[in-house]
């Protein structure tokens, strides 16, 4: 779905589902017309003729609305719908006139005779107005509902994106303030690292990144944290097996690493080792983040929140081909991100 489609309210009349709906409605109307009391004889022959006429009318309307869709979309939904409705009545009236003229010229008597013939065109217009109003209304509601679902999940993903703990920001600023006096070069690098993190958190680096960029971001983050925590933070990395060009949304791993430090390393007076491993497994890639945990878990605000957040984002981007597994162990905690072998995001965006 391209961006231009996001705020369209008129259903795409050329699409197969909509065409099918139009044909179905036309056929239903044909049945009603043939079976209605007072109709002259419910024969298969008559059903056939009425069906052909109505299907033709329906498809004609769909094609006209389809080609007008671009212009109609520029109007407000209310006036656009009204015009679409008037167009349908106009097309039907003209078509009915055309058919009646041809019928008279060929003298087939299909459009009735006498009083019935005089009623043919107005009756067509009125029926079209009624059915068209109902159909447009139905299609409009469906389209709006789809739109809402799309907007809701996009909003959710957006909201999940930009979350960096305020504590981290202010602690980093404090670290930098301290470094400026004594180690200006380190201060400079910390500012650069912090900027990269915030660029990603504020969504400025786009909706798509690569695994290599994300691992770099994790490195930047860890560099800031090791300035802060000093020797209390040790990191063991085994990530060489991972494909650096693998496409994935930014900030998928960094928050998990942040979580591991926040809940695992920081509450331990003597600190601990953060374990990052990445390997090829059956049918995909597996990235594990392990940390020691305090003997008595310290209740800190937002416990588990980051994990739910990432799980929702993985679900949105990868569907059920990816997973996030939290594995509490004895004295340690591991989070495993499992990704499909080929990233579905590798397809270039439209």
């Amino acid at each position, binding site marked *: 779905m391209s961006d231009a489609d996001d705020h369209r309210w008129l259903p795409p009349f050329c699409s197969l589902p909509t065409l099918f709906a139009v044909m179905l409605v036309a056929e239903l109307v044909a049945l009603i017309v043939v079976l209605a009391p007072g109709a002259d004889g419910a024969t298969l022959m008559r059903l056939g003729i009425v069906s052909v006429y109505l299907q033709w009318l329906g498809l004609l309307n769909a094609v006209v609305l389809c080609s007008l869709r671009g212009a109609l979309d520029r109007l407000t939904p209310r006036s656009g719908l009204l015009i679409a409705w008037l167009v349908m009545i106009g097309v039907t009236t003209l078509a009915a006139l055309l058919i009646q003229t041809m019928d008279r010229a060929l003298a087939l008597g299909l459009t009735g005779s006498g009083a019935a013939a005089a009623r043919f065109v107005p009756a067509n217009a009125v029926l079209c107005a009624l059915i068209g109003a109902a159909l447009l209304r139905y299609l409009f509601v469906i389209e709006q509902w789809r739109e809402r679902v799309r907007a809701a999940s996009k909003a959710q993903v957006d909201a999940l994106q930009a979350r960096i703990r305020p504590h981290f920001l202010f602690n980093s600023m404090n*670290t930098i*303030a*301290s470094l400026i006096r004594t180690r200006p070069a380190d201060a400079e690098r910390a500012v650069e690292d912090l900027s990269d993190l915030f660029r990603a958190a504020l969504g400025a680096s786009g909706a798509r990144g690569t695994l290599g960029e994300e691992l770099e971001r994790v490195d930047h983050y860890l560099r800031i944290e090791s300035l802060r925590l000093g020797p209390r933070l040790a990191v063991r990395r085994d990530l060489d097996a991972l494909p650096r060009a693998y496409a994935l949304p930014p900030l998928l791993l960094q928050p998990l690493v942040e979580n591991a430090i926040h809940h695992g390393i920081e509450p331990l007076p003597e600190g601990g080792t953060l374990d990052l491993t990445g390997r090829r497994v059956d049918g995909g890639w597996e990235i594990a983040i392990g940390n020691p945990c305090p003997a008595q878990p310290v209740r800190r605000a937002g416990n588990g929140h980051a994990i739910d957040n990432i799980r929702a984002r993985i679900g949105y981007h990868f569907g059920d081909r990816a997973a996030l597994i939290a594995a509490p162990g004895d004295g340690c905690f591991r989070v495993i991100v499992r990704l499909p072998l080929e990233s579905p995001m590798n397809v270039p965006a439209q």
Partner: protein
Amino acid sequence: MKVLVVDDEPLARERLVALLGEIDGARVVGEAGSGAALLEAAPALQPDVVLLDIRMPAMDGLEAARHLAALEAPPAVVFCTAYDEHALAAFDVHAIDYIVKPVRAERLRQALDRARRYGGEQLRRAGGSGPERQRTHLCARVRGSLVLVPIGEVAYLQAEDKYVVIHHARGQVLIEEPLKDLEEEFGDRFVRIHRNCLVARDRLVGLLRTPDGRTLARLDADGVELEVSRRSLPGLRKLVKNL
């Protein structure tokens, strides 16, 4: 004015020490990297002011401040923290002031001025009052220094005169807190077995009857047996049955 700087992050301490060096009349007498280190150092250093980080591993700054109140001449406490979600809790323990990181020099000067004016009495008055969070340690004053007992190591608490004796893994110490307050604070951890005694629930192994009709509670630690009052007996029976 003697200042003690407490923060688990070396760079945060470094910055405070540098800022304090530029403030007339302030002298850094020491640095500590944890709440426990603060409580160990404070009695000897006798600081006038403690600049205390709130979020630290093992024992946070709020709890360390509560324990400081047990000192004979408690210092004034100024909390420093990166993010002010803790502000209200800090004033619960009657901090002199509360400053956010990165600390500004003029703000630090203001805080020290306040500390000079009000001193550490604030902290003392607050000691043991109000509904507060569970501590992770109990703190006793022994010959001028502070002894910390992790709450998990306490086997039982017994009231004697105006003291409560803490029986823990490494011995016994006296504290001056009413048994009733301790029961309120640690109700989920200790159970009352007698008017003068609270026992750690996880230490309780069983009840036994003496020939003269009294009931004793047996603890897992070196065969300690403590008298159970008739009033606590029904509740205790239920507890032991579920062991």
